[in-house]
């Protein structure tokens, strides 16, 4: 097989139903359901799968190995990333190297968040120099946002605007957990109760349950299938150290995705202006500003102006988080990373459940320090 025909494409991408809770479901059952949907979308069978990156629930140590065994697969390649943008890049590399032909990325969560007196289990960092100060995810991420807003004199309503845009996208999406809850204005965001200053409740992601899966295969194999293959144009991922361990200052957070984004655009051979859809991880509202700055769309401190006045709304030049993201569509602990990829694929196929961007040809997906560029 030539190198060109070994190029990897995304050929299947699906979410299960997402809900605040899915009684009777488990992390394994929703991950399996997503697997079936994505393989069905691709027109492939489980027997075609010879590579796997899976994270049912929060089984970071052995998710891929355990899920592959549970599926009854014989030996299979496994990725090391959490299923999401970096896992797409990793799977594409494995396919192009001939390590495997068809890779399943799958994740999902149900039944893990039961102690509602505490924050969700995936947001309680257990590090010795973190936990004792009462940090959890919103506080951790508020620290860099607060520092940025202080440094560049950004008023809270400019950040609240971002949350209102994303929540309105979700409100229009019949598949979103919080469908029909809008419309929201920036004042609605600011009127919600404070969680970790400067983040109000509606600046933050929600918690819900469900599964998601993506299937990649070779371009050659995809030609025999009935679906539009989405090309993996470029990508990368940056780390500045272990999460929930060291002080999350703005100067550190600002570096996430800079090198990865530069590498992604360089490999894709496209410019920033070629991107039509921006599926950014919206765990907290200010993060959208951080991503535009990290990817080189504007300079540090310019993000609040860059996103303003409709620029990031559907119909604007830089539409973000078009399914409603973690604030409205669904946030399951980890598989929301795959939801960003699923939504990008649906936009590029012209099959978004709502908020379709006309003639979308290129999408960028980011999650924390991970970046992937997808195109049709």
């Amino acid at each position, binding site marked *: 097989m030539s190198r060109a025909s070994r190029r990897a494409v995304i050929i299947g991408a699906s979410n299960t139903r997402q809900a605040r809770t899915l009684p009777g479901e488990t992390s394994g059952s929703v991950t399996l359901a997503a697997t079936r949907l994505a393989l069905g979308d691709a027109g492939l069978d489980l027997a075609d799968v010879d590579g796997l990156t899976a994270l049912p629930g929060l089984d970071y140590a052995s998710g891929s190995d355990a899920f592959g065994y549970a599926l009854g697969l014989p030996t299979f390649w496994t990725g090391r990333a959490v299923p999401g943008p970096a896992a797409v890049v990793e799977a594409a590399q494995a396919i192009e190297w001939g390590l495997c032909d068809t890779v399943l990325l799958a994740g999902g969560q149900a039944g893990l968040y039961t102690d509602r007196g505490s924050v969700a289990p995936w947001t*309680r960092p257990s590090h010795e*120099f973190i936990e004792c100060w*009462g940090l959890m995810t919103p506080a951790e991420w508020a620290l860099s946002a607060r520092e940025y807003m202080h440094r560049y004199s950004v008023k809270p309503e400019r950040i609240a605007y971002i949350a209102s845009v994303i929540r309105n996208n979700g409100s229009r999406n019949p598949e979103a957990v919080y469908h029909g809850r809008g419309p929201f204005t920036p004042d609605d965001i600011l009127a919600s109760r404070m969680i970790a200053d400067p983040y109000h409740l509606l600046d933050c992601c929600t918690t819900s349950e469900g599964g998601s899966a993506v299937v990649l295969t070779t371009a050659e194999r995809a030609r025999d299938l009935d679906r539009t293959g989405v090309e993996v144009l470029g990508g990368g991922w940056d780390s500045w150290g272990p999460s929930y361990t060291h002080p999350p200052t703005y100067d550190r957070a600002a570096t996430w995705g800079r090198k990865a984004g530069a590498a992604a655009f360089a490999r894709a051979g496209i410019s920033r202006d070629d991107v039509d859809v921006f599926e950014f991880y919206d765990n907290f509202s200010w993060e959208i500003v951080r991503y535009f700055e990290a990817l080189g769309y504007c300079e540090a401190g310019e993000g609040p102006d860059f996103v303003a006045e409709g620029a990031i709304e559907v119909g604007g030049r830089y539409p973000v988080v078009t399914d409603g993201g973690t604030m409205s569509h669904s946030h399951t602990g980890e598989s929301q990373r795959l939801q960003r990829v699923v939504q990008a694929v649906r936009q590029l196929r012209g099959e978004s459940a709502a908020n379709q961007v006309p003639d979308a040809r290129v999408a960028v997906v980011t999650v924390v320090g991970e970046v992937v560029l997808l195109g049709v």
Partner: protein
Amino acid sequence: MPRPSALTRPFWDACRVGRLTVQRCTRCQGYVFVPQEFCRHCRSTTLTWVETAGTGRIVTYTVVWRPQTPAFTAPYVVAVVELDEGYQMISNIVGSDAAGAAVGDRVRVRFVRVSEAVTLPCFELAA
């Protein structure tokens, strides 16, 4: 509550007797926090524990209204403090005026004993 390792036990032992300490490299004089096995600046393995002045300034902070677990009482203030020695640590701002904390404010360490085994190095606004 912190579960000290062999690497971090000296830090918590010092807190119990009211001393804020940090690893310092005897070769390049750099400070290292959180504790690790070699110097982050010059990779030397010659780190020793030294006492700090316990004073610094707030780099950034957040007032938390949704407690991590019921063990915490909201609101409480989490901050990144840059010590005058030049290294950073996460801590809580405590004291009756903690809610008035702002970026750039001067702070000094205030030890809060939470159990027989654990004393936390918190900070309070300096007058």
